């Protein structure tokens, strides 16, 4: 069972999943970084992204990847609206409790989830494409095509994000706001607009990831929950304000989950994520980044 062959293939499968995990969690990281808000409705938008992609494939026979891309704009708009109408009210006032934004977004998630239940019911949905069951043999390992595609697309998206954050004005303004909102204001950045943008971007990424998810998993309106917790585990592991850390956190979680299945029942897999979450929050809240800087100093 523990042959090198086996271990390597588990590791590869984990890394392929990590790509998707990273995209899914990036939105959460951006929103948290900019406004210190934990967007628990991220899971709701993830699920909506999956369902909208389902609709696209049912109405127009659109491939899930195309569907995921199609989701970007409307979800960006939705996130922008959510910020303008709801989040802004509980975040900026000096007397706002941090828990208020959490509860607000939680309420939003409840609403989204139940509206989805009302529209689509609670049966398992999945999208079968021409390549769902195909795999590629690379170097003696069988890699499912869907996972490869999702990984490639995720990598592309992450690279694009990295470029935008690093080399465009908006990206730099965003990172500045993350570092120090007041200083950003002083240098003339409209932090209000950046916040709205960040929320929109985070939600867009959630919708995008949701679309990609349809290639790998079947889904119901309830499936957002575990992913939400996993996303949060990932950003805590990576260091809450560290964007590069998201990919590291995603890799750690994916590897931990995949290797754990070798030792325990598959149905206990989510407990790994939850356990890691609690441990990470308590033991290393600054995530891997904190560990890294401690090693360096």
């Amino acid at each position: 069972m523990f042959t090198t062959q086996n271990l390597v293939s588990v590791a590869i499968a984990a890394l392929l999943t990590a790509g998707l995990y990273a995209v899914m969690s990036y939105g959460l990281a951006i929103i948290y970084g900019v406004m210190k808000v934990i967007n628990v409705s991220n899971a709701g938008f993830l699920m909506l992204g999956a369902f909208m992609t389902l609709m696209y494939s049912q109405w127009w026979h659109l491939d899930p990847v195309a569907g995921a891309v199609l989701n970007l704009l409307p979800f960006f708009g939705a996130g922008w609206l959510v910020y303008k109408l709801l989040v802004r009210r509980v975040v900026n006032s000096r007397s706002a409790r941090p828990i208020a934004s959490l509860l607000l977004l939680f309420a939003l998630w409840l609403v989204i989830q139940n509206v989805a239940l009302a529209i689509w019911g609670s049966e398992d949905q999945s999208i079968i494409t021409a390549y769902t069951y195909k795999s590629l043999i690379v170097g003696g390992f069988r890699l499912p095509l869907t996972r490869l595609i999702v990984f490639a697309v995720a990598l592309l998206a992450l690279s694009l994000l990295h470029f935008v954050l690093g080399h465009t004005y908006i990206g730099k303004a965003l990172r500045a706001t993350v570092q120090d909102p007041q200083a950003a204001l002083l240098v003339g950045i409209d932090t209000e607009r950046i916040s709205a943008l960040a929320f929109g971007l985070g939600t867009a990424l959630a919708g995008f990831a949701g679309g990609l998810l349809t290639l790998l998993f079947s889904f119901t309106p309830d499936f957002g929950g575990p992913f939400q917790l996993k996303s949060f585990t990932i950003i805590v592991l990576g260091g809450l304000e560290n964007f590069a850390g998201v990919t590291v956190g995603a890799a750690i979680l994916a590897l931990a989950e995949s290797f754990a299945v070798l030792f325990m029942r598959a149905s206990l897999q989510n407990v790994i994520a939850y356990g890691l979450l609690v441990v990470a929050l308590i033991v290393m809240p600054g995530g891997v980044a904190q560990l890294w800087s401690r090693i360096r100093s």
Partner: protein
Amino acid sequence: MRPSLRLELAAALAVGILLAAVPLLIPGNITLLNLGILTFLYVAQGVAWNILGGFAGYVSFGYAAFFGLGAYTTALLWLAGWSPVLTYPVAGLVAAAFSLLVGAPTLRLIGPYFSIATIGVGEAMRILMLNLDKITGGASGLNLPTIVPSKTWFYFVALICAAIAYAVAAWIRGARFGLGLTALRLDLEAAESLGVRTTLFKNLAHIVSAALVGACGGVYATYLQYVHPDTVFSFTHSISLVLIALIGGLGTVWGPVLGAAVFFVVQDYLQTSYPSFHLLVYGLLLLLIILFEPGGMAGLAGRLVARVSHASTGSPAAAPAPHAEHGGAPMPRTETERPGTKRTT
């Protein structure tokens, strides 16, 4: 004792007596009895949850873990031959012990991080219980003995649970313990520096509320005669408690009572559309409450009372606002936004 508190307790006693009289006045009404039993259990849990969530300000999304533990403790002891009533306190104790175990590390986290951690703990418990099928019956649940007392008996037991929970919460509210909890909610560091033993108080609140919820779980198990991890450990159950307390009014004692009553009526009434429609309604209600009336229904009621007495006396509102000061209204937070642990040396 504050006059407003005395009034509150008198009102609560009156309501309690009225409710106790119901099965005597309308005997044999199964639907009413069932509604009463479940509502009282939710009232008890909501009020208990509020001790940590409303008074101390630590919003936990994982109370189903205590409910489930209580339910399973009772179930297993009952199957082993114990008399059900004797198991209730044990169920409470088991839940309390577990709450100490998970609470000690997690209560060191501030606000939102604590909440997220509790989601993880609650869900982890559910999955673990589902997988420990030798003990818990796993996915098929546990069937319990069918020789049970009458529904009327359960009605009174549930009412007593609610009464006990209410009494405990009211006592805490009026005692220094309660003041300490409010203090640590408003500003943890300031409370610490003033000598409030915040860690002790937090954990104590956690234990007490967990014990109450656990005992309710035990009652629930004997009432339903069946336990299954997906029902007693469900995230939906945890959410329900949060919703009841938030919508009823965080930080008041009778807020959750109102919240639970309304929650149950709404759930019962909307059950026909589809199973979790009431959650949609409550989600929307929660949205509105966070945005416009953080004090929940209790806060709203308080404001109305103040308005009415203002209008009738024509003078600036000097009306007693017994619940207004801790109605869960946004308070300035001076602590930094750093996640993770709060250092309380």
